[in-house]
């Protein structure tokens, strides 16, 4: 039962991820990305990390992608964006960078040791994550919040030309 669910949603996630790249129309790419993120959140549930699953949907599928879709609607991009000519060299840069990223992912997965137990059970996962965020990972947590603050101020500077 669990395995069937896993394979169905893993297939959906991979298929949607490929569809993001294949689609010519930006709106379809964005929608495929939403589908991918939601399918991955189901995989999180199968790992009993339901807090992560819900947060994934709230933040990525629910907040960030809404902004993406909003911007796409606002700009009303033409169906077949023909911007490939100017950026032809990106193809040659993309392949080594993609391979490097793949190497990074594999290397990380190879050396991973389960430091946070997100599988503390259906009721405990939110508490477990919160606890480790405010004890073991306090510095990275605060550093991230600073980073977000800087990004926020950057956005304000961009939006208001004369402060």
């Amino acid at each position, binding site marked *: 039962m669990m395995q069937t669910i896993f394979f169905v949603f893993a297939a959906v996630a991979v298929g949607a991820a490929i569809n993001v790249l294949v689609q010519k129309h930006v709106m379809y790419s964005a929608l495929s990305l939403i589908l991918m993120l939601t399918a991955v959140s189901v995989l999180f549930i199968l790992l009993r990390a339901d807090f992560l699953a819900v947060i994934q949907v709230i933040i990525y599928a629910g907040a960030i992608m*809404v902004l993406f879709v909003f911007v796409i609607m606002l700009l009303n991009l033409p169906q077949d964006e023909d911007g490939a000519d100017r950026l032809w060299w990106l193809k040659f840069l993309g392949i080594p960078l993609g391979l490097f990223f793949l190497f990074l992912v594999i290397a990380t997965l190879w050396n991973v040791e389960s430091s946070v137990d997100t599988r503390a059970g259906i009721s405990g996962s939110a508490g477990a994550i919160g606890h480790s965020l405010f004890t073991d990972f306090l510095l990275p947590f605060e550093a991230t919040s600073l980073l977000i603050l800087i990004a926020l101020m950057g956005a304000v500077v961009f939006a208001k030309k004369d402060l």
Partner: protein
Amino acid sequence: MIEYLMDSEFLLLLLKIIVIFGGVMGALAYLTWLERKVIARVQMRPGPTRVGPFGLLQPIADGLKFLFKEDVIPTNANTFLYVAAPVVSLIPALLSFSVIPFGPSLQITDLGVGLLFIFAITSLGVYGIVLGGWSSNSKYPLMGAMRSSAQMISYELSLTLSVVGVLLIANTLSLAQIVVSQQRTLLGFIPRWNIFLQPVAFLVYVISAVAETNRLPFDFAESEQELVAGWHTEYSSLKFAMFMLAEYANMVTVSALATIMFLGGWAGPMFGPALLQTALPTVWFVLKVGVFIFFYVLMRATVPRLRYDQLMKFGWKFLLPLSLANIVLTSLIVAIAAS
């Protein structure tokens, strides 16, 4: 597999799903009747009276009418997304009922992260509106969809943050346990409902919930005087009915959430024989939700629409700071009380 299906626990779950789904769908249909009747009374009109006594069969007549109307798809619309949008809108709206506790045992499943689950699911509902507006390939729907997505992003923030104060006190994300945490009394006679402990959060929640469900005075997605009907201008027949159903379902969800978090959920005076005692919590719950919905309908009948820039200013410059201040104050008090 067969043994699993015949398992009494599974059958009970199936029964709960049927009861809750059937009850909710019936309630949604009659909400349209209630809304028309109440608004009519406010405006000194009789409202629907022709179909059945007091117009009580009006929802059924409306449903049949939706079924038999011509289903129009605009020529230049993006057909796939145009058809998908009402579904995308309705499924999240109905899915959130799977974690709402209508009574101590009348809950399909009590998720440990139930509250966040509802926020996650409802945050997906905006795609229905956005896609519906965009795929119609028409000017008014696009305007409505854009306004709506901006509005929902803005008010989702204060809606979510207003709940944090309640969570700090209840110390759990499970909806059933939030209800249980409110069952003592203050000073011996006032029920320890979060509305008395978190009045600011309650205020912020109710206002943001109205904006989140796109109802008057925040119905900029629709605003019929400016945008014809907003994002569902081009929709007809059953697709339009699905959008309407989703809107009413969202209204019930935010009202039920307000009841659970601020009004003690199914709590209420218990009396009478054992059979009555098992039904009473659900009765109290439905009554409390009904009060909220009545309030929503009255708001629609009495309060005029704001201006769009007023709405944005109000959300970002008043509600958001207020809910943030509420969180800081509440966590300070909780920390002092704990130490």
